[in-house]
């Protein structure tokens, strides 16, 4: 027992109290029914049509949100690489600044902007464009999710791209590579670790962001997170809620295992 492991004491206690014990409780609930008898029914319930449907919608939404985040993040990151030190830290600050405000407040603001009588439609009418009924749609929900998680994607990719030696890019240019070739043959392959950790950080929370679904989609779309929330809060079927959570956890762990297998050092050095 050296001194260093002593210092991890508080964290270990924290983990036991807030991760290990709750997880055991969830597992216990998931494997029992209302009378306390052992059952697999709560786990298998994921394959009921209602739950499968919500799961499919969740995966779809999470997939498209992740793709949009990647498409938005790369151009910005490449532009950032060319900036000076001041420009870089300034951009990062602007990116992280909104995260100092609670995300529910930001979503409520976004909801007002997108609402039928909101700022966006007001601007449209000034420009003589027809109004858009974006509020309470899947599009609005995805805007909310992308808005929430984009910074994680940008920062993860940026960490990898910033590590790429400028000499390599210059060498490629010397040998006659155009911008596209440089991107696809150098920047993209070398930033895969950051990209993968970005995908994990965006895809996984997108799938379960039930608050975003409630606020932005007006209660019309059920992600798997909404169903679990409903089981716990309204229906009071904690057993079914736990069963679905366990299956969701397995799904998430599988997808993380898949991405981190290719990712030796997770590229989390520069900012976090």
């Amino acid at each position: 027992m050296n001194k260093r492991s002593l210092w991890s004491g508080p964290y270990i206690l924290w983990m036991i109290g807030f991760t290990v014990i709750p997880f055991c409780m969830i597992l216990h609930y998931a494997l029992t029914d209302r009378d306390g008898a052992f059952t697999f029914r709560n786990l298998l319930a994921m394959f009921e049509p209602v739950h499968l449907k919500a799961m499919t919608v969740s995966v779809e939404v999470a997939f498209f949100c992740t793709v949009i985040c990647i498409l938005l993040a790369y151009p910005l990151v490449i532009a950032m690489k060319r900036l000076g030190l001041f420009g870089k830290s300034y951009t990062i600050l602007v990116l992280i600044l909104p995260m100092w405000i609670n995300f529910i407040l930001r979503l409520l603001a976004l909801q007002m902007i997108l609402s039928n009588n909101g700022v966006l439609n007001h601007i449209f009418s000034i420009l003589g464009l027809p109004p858009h009924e974006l509020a309470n749609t899947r599009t609005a929900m995805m805007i909310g999710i992308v808005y929430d998680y984009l910074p994680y994607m940008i920062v993860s990719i940026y960490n990898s791209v910033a590590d790429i030696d400028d000499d390599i890019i210059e060498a490629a240019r010397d040998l006659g590579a155009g911008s596209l070739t440089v991107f696809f043959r150098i920047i993209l392959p070398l930033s895969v670790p950051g990209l993968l950790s970005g995908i994990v950080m965006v895809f996984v929370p997108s799938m379960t962001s039930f608050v975003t679904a409630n606020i932005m989609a007006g209660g019309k779309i059920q992600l798997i997170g909404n169903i679990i929330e409903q089981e716990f809060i309204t229906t009071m079927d904690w057993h079914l809620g736990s069963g679905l959570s366990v299956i969701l956890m397995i799904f998430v762990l599988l997808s993380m295992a898949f991405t981190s297998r290719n990712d030796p050092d997770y590229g989390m050095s520069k900012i976090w």
Partner: protein
Amino acid sequence: MKKKFVVVVFMVLLMSSCLMCGCNKADENSITVFNYGMYMDPEVLKIFEEETGIKVKYEEAPTPEELYTKYKSGAVKYDVLCTSEYMLQRLINEGELQEVDFSTLKNRDNIGDEYFDMCKSFDPDNKYVMPYFWGTVGILYDKEKVHGDVDTWDVLFNGEYAGEFIMQNSMRDAYMVALKQLGYSINTTNEAELREAQELLIDQKPDVQSYLVDEVKDELVAGNATLGVVYSGEGYYAGEEREGLVYCIPREGTNLWIDCFGVTKDCKNVDNAMKFLDYLCREDCAKINFDYVKYASPYLSVIETMTDKEKASSAINPSKEIINNCEIYVQLPQETTDLLNALWKELKAE
């Protein structure tokens, strides 16, 4: 090794002492109150604390179901709680409320007897709950945007206002609307009737702008929607906030609800709890709460001093005929509740 042991013991002590002071405080001269959100003027709590010296710990929940879940989890021991009739019925059946004698309240005579009678459907001997507020569920609409009068649930189903109306995002209220539209009882346990209501709601879903709870009124005030299903008090408030917003009770009838306070079985200091209930029906406190909440009040002093505008409002002062056309929720048997939960999940996933 020894050092590590000391650190761990120290931390366990630290954590348990934090937990302990949480428990100890509850035993002192205090009372823990559980209520819906925005359902009591903080001023009343202040008056009560100042005059009696009893400290009030006040907790809120948005819906009856969430209130029940939070109560049942047992994390906090509540002394008195306020919820709606069908949830009170469930709590009474489960033995969660204790019998009290409301005739010992100094201000008992300020509570209209007919409101204790309303409670008899779930509390036959009036020994568990004290009426707090009551009201109806109806349609709030924007007079300038609707075509003609609104006095029926049908406007929410006939496609006339597609994309312009808001439904309640709470299970029983959503099915109540459909069941009334079909002419069935809101307490039906008939599976065929519920499935018919489900079909109606599924057909309606593409036309629904959103399913909300407390924000329905705000969306109408902001002009984002034309009609919305709301509770009567919100209906009155919306009319105050913006002219042209009108609350109506559809002619097919609706849900009549009554929210009451009860004393929980865990309450140690019943005297304090009763003192608190007594304050709620004292003339001045009842008035402050009424002005804050604007639902129909069961307290005679409030009813007598209402303004003409309040008296004329069907939200605050519905006529006897309207009341007779309404139904009070009763707690459904477990199998019907399970069916409703499944149907609701299916509807929302559609």
